[in-house]
C-alpha cells in the first residue's frame, strides 16, 4: 500500500507524503544493556505513526533517539533527506521537532498562557533587553506570537484556564497545556510520549480528537508512544511494535493486529 516512494492515501482519504525521517539500523546501548537493537523504520509526511510495545520495550528510548536526545552507538538517523549529526536541544527545536513528555514538564508556577508562550521562543528574534523595554520590534513580535498562541488556546479549548497557574490544574488539563506548548513551536514533527497515560475515558476521547485535529488542521506529522491499544489502533496510520529492544512488527493497525509475533508479545506464548 505504501511501497511507492511518493507516499500513499489513507482509508479516510488523507494523502501521506514522502519520508520525513528515517531510522537506519539503530542500536542504542546503556553500558552493557542494549535498549534498542538494530531497528529501522521511517516516518512519512502528514502521517500519525505510533510506537507500541510492552513495558521496557525501548519505546521512550526510541523517541529520545528521534528527538536527538540520545545518540545511538550504531545506525543513522536521516531527517529531510540528510544524515543527522548529534544535535543540541535548541538545534532540534529549530529543525521543527517538538515533543511532550511522559511525566509532565511544565513551568508549574507560571500561567497557562506564559507556558504556551515559551513554545514560541524559537520564533522570537529580539533579545532580552529589547523585550524588557518592550518597544517597537519587541512589542510587534510579542503581539504576533501571542496571536499564534491564542489560536492554539482556542484550538485546544483551554480559554477558561488561560490565566490559571499550571500547578492548580488537574492532570488531564496539564497534558493538554503541554500539547499546546509543543504546538506553539509550529513543529513539522510532533513527538508525543504517552499523551493519554493516566487519563479517564472521556479525557482520552478528547485528547484523541485533538491529536486527529492537529494532524488534520495543521498537517503536522505525529509520532506517538501509547499503551492504550484501542487508542493506538484508532488513531494511527502505521504502527511500529517493539519488544525487548527489537522491532517485531511494522505496518497498518490491521496488519499489526494480525501479526503473530505481536500477538505473542502481548498475550504471551505457552512454552510447553
Amino acid at each position, binding site marked *: 500500500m505504501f511501497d511507492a516512494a511518493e507516499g500513499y492515501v489513507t482509508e*479516510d*482519504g*488523507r494523502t501521506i507524503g514522502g519520508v520525513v525521517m528515517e531510522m537506519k539500523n539503530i542500536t542504542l546501548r546503556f553500558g552493557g544493556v542494549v535498549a534498542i537493537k538494530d531497528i529501522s523504520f521511517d516516518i512519512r509526511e502528514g502521517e500519525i505513526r505510533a510506537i507500541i510495545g510492552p513495558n521496557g520495550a525501548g519505546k521512550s528510548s526510541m523517541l529520545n533517539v528521534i528527538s536527538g536526545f540520545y545518540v545511538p552507538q550504531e545506525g543513522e538517523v536521516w531527517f529531510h533527506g540528510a544524515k543527522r549529526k548529534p544535535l543540541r536541544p535548541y538545534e532540534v527545536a529549530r529543525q521543527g521537532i517538538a515533543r511532550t513528555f511522559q511525566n509532565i514538564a511544565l513551568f508549574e508556577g507560571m500561567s497557562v498562557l506564559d507556558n504556551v508562550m515559551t513554545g514560541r521562543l524559537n520564533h522570537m528574534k529580539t533579545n532580552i533587553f529589547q523585550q524588557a523595554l518592550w518597544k517597537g520590534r519587541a512589542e510587534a513580535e510579542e503581539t504576533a506570537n*501571542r*496571536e499564534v498562541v*491564542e*489560536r492554539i*488556546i*482556542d*484550538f485546544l*479549548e483551554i*480559554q*477558561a484556564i*488561560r490565566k490559571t497557574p499550571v500547578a492548580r490544574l488537574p492532570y488531564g488539563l496539564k497534558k493538554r497545556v503541554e500539547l499546546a506548548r509543543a504546538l506553539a513551536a509550529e513543529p513539522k514533527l510532533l513527538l508525543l510520549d504517552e499523551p493519554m497515560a493516566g487519563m479517564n475515558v472521556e479525557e482520552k476521547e478528547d485528547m484523541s*480528537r485533538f491529536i*486527529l*485535529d492537529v494532524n*488534520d*488542521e495543521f498537517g503536522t506529522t505525529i509520532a506517538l508512544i501509547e499503551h492504550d491499544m484501542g487508542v493506538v489502533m484508532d488513531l494511527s496510520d502505521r504502527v511500529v511494535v517493539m519488544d525487548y529492544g527489537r522491532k517485531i512488527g511494522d505496518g497498518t493497525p490491521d496488519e499489526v493486529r494480525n501479526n503473530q509475533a505481536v500477538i505473542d508479545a502481548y498475550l504471551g506464548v505457552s512454552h510447553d
Partner: protein
Amino acid sequence: MTEPVANPAFASVPALLARNASQFANRPAYREKEFGIWQSWTWAETAEEIEALALGLINLGVQPGDFIAIIGRNRPSLYWSMVAAQSVGAVPVPLYQDAVSEEMAYVLENCGASYVIAGDQEQVDKVIEVQDRLKNLQHVIYVDPRGLRKYDHRTLHEFAHVQDQGRAARDELSGELAARTGALSYDSICVMLYTSGTTGKPKGVVLSNRNVIETSKNSGDFDALTQSEEILSYLPLAWVGDFIFSVGQAYWCGFCVNCPESADTMMTDLREIGPSYFFAPPRVFEGQLTNVMIRMEDAGALKRRMFHHFLEHAKKVGGDILDGNPVGLLDRVKYSLGNLLVYGPLKDTLGYGRIRVGYTAGEAIGPEIFAFYRSLGINLKQLYGQTEATVFITQQPDGQVRADTVGVPSPAVELKIEDTGEIFYRSPGVFVEYFNNPDSTAGTKDAEGWVATGDAGFIEESSGHLRIIDRAKDVGKLANGAMFAPKYVENKLKFYPDILEAVLFGNERETCVAFINIDLVAVGNWAERNNIAYASYQELAGHPAVLETIAGHVAAVNASVAQDEMLSGCQIHRFVVLHKELDADDGEMTRTRKVRRRIVEEKFADIIDALYGGLAEVSTTTEVTYEDGRKGAISATLACVDAEVVSVQKMAAE
C-alpha cells in the same frame, strides 16, 4: 385591549437593522471574545455581514417560508443567521445546543427545516446522525470549520464561504433580497421557538414581528433602555428570553450584544463586560453567592471580618437605599464606606459593577439570595413570563421590588384570575399559534385572545402585585381535602445551598413525602472541610452526616410550612436523598431545568412506594443516559428518613 397597530415604519427586525445601521452606524452592535480579545462589529458592519449571509442564502436556494434551524452557542454569526433568515423571508428556528440528536430530530422533523445553520462539528454530527429522517433538509451551514474538512461537502457549507458567495452575487441578487425584505409585514412570522415541554413533546410557538417588536418597545420603555446598554448573551438561543433580550430589545433599542468566549469562561467574560442590563435565572445568582461565601472562608481574618461586618450593615439598609426609602445619615455614610471597601470590589468581581437593570425569572429565587444582591446596590428585579407571551406578563417596577411577588402587569398586558386560581393574560405579545397544532392553540388561547398560563396565583390587594403559588395542574388536594402545592414547599427546600433540587409528592395521599438532590458543590465543599471522604456523588448523597444535615433542613421547612394555614398539610413526613442528580438527558428535567414531575413519579415509583410503605431503606436500579447518548444503569440502596413534623391534627379536625 389596545388597538392593533397596522404596519408601522419598522415592521420587522431587518427594518430595525436598516434603521440602526444608519442611525447608530459606528456604535458597537456585537462583541465576541475570540483569541483572548474582544472583537467587535458596529451596526454598519453588522448590516453588511447579515446582507452577505442573506444573499448567500438566496444563492443556496432558500425560499420564503422555509424554516432555517439555528443550533449552537451564543455567537454573533448565529444571531446574524436569525436576521438573515428573516431578511430572505424564511423563519429562524433556534434549537437548544445541548439537545441530544433524538430531541433535535423531533424538532427538525416537526418544523420541516430545509436548512440548518450549526455552530460547530458537534452540532453538524448530530444533524448528520438523523438526516435520513429529515426529508426536507437540503443544506447544512457551519460556522467553525474545525474538524469538518474531511466531511462530504455536497450539501455542507462553511458560513464564511456562503457569505463570500453572497457578496459575489450581490449585483445579481440584491434586487431579490430587497423585494423579500420589503415584503415583511407586522404580521409575518418573526421567529419560531420550541417550548421546553414540561409536559409531553415540545411545541413550536410562532411569534410575529408584532409580538416581538411591540413587546420589545413596551418592555424597553418600562426600564428606559437605550442604545448604550451592554448585555451579555449566554443563555440558550432557543429560549424566548434570549431572543427578546439579544434580538428584539437589542434591535429596537440599538444596544450592544456581547458573546462569551466559551461556556466555561462566562464568569470571566461577565466581569470584563460589566453589563448594564442583565438577566440570569435564580440558579446563576445562587451559584455565585455560594462561590463568594466559599471563597470568603479562605480569605484572611481581617478581610473576612470586614466582609461580614459590612454585609451585615448592607442587609440592614442596602435595600432601602436602593429603593429610595429614608435612611439615617450615619447609616448612609457607613454604607458609602462599605461600598468603597466591600460592596464595590465585590460587585466588580462578580461583574455587576455597572448593572442598572437586572432581572431574574423562571423559578422562585430565595428571599435571602435576592436580598443579598439588592443590599449590595444591584437593582435585581423579578419578572414573570412565558414563551407564549413573548416573555413579559408581569415585572417589578424600580422601587417596588419584593422576593415573594413577580410584579405588576407589564405595559399593555391585561391580567385576570379565574375562579380556579389560574392566571390568564392578554397582550400584544400573545403568540400567533402553536405550529401545525390548532388543537393545542385553541386549548391555550381563547377567541378573545386570553391565554391560560397554567399557573395558579393571586393579585395581592395591598400592592397590586401578582403572587404565584404553583403550576395550576400541580396544585392538588391531599386525602383530607387540604391544599397540596408542591412547588411552594420545594422552593423553601431549594433555598438551602445544600439542596439543588427537591420533588414533593402527596396528591390524593394522606401525607407528603419528598425526593431531594444535594448540591455537589456546596455539600462537597462542606465534606472537604469536615474531613468526610467520598468517592462519588452517590456515596456523598448517602452519607449519614449528609442525611442528618438534610433532615435538619427538612424539619426547618416543615416548621415554616406549618405557619401557613392553607398549606400546613404539605409538611414532609418522610424523604430520600436521591443517588443521582435529576437530569435533562434522562428526561427527568426539561432543558431549562424544570422538573418533569410525572416522569420522576413514574421512574422512581419503587422509592415512593417504599416511602409510603414505611420501609427503612429501598434498593433501586435507575437507567441513566450519558452525554453522548449511551445508556447505563446505576443501582443504590437509599435510606428512607423520617422527618420531624409539626402537629397539624387540630387544624385538619376543625
